[in-house]
């Protein structure tokens, strides 16, 4: 019997500072962006296997 892994996923992280200058007003906004968790679709595309429900 194997013990299920409960290790947390450890993702790469993208951090960026972006600036949006509104054409209508000329005003510039600054936003600090950070990447979120990897979407399930991406993880599957990269070879991950979705967790299966445990058998009764």
């Amino acid at each position: 019997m194997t013990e299920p892994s409960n290790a947390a996923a450890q993702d790469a992280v993208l951090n960026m500072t972006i600036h949006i200058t509104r054409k209508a007003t000329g005003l510039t906004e600054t936003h600090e962006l950070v990447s979120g968790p990897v979407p399930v679709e991406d993880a599957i595309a990269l070879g991950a296997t979705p967790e299966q429900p445990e058998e009764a």
Partner: protein
Amino acid sequence: MAGTTTHPAAIRNAFADLITSTCSTTGRLVFRITGSTATSPSTPVATLTLSNPIGAGAAAGVLTLSAISSDTNAAGGVIAFATLQTAAGTIACHTTVGTSGDAININSGGLTVTAGDTVACSALTYTACP
């Protein structure tokens, strides 16, 4: 027993540098609308041109991108994803993005970009998995 998997700096640097080599000579930072996947990226909101190469070699697993050229005539949309890729569309990195909440803007339009707006990026780092 569950545990934590980590990698030495040399491995993390190699992984981060693979982003640089994959972007090759025509790197782009593309912001995209919702519904994007790595194999089927969604509609671009803004496309920014990266330096060639996109950055110097990674250190301590962190790739810091060199100067990024603005998109002075964005297509528009709500930013939900971002890709680091070649101009031809080969994706090196695909990620969701959200605001970290530490920017202060009065009457902000958030991450909604109107067609014709200018989108710039003054700093970008890619940190490889631990």
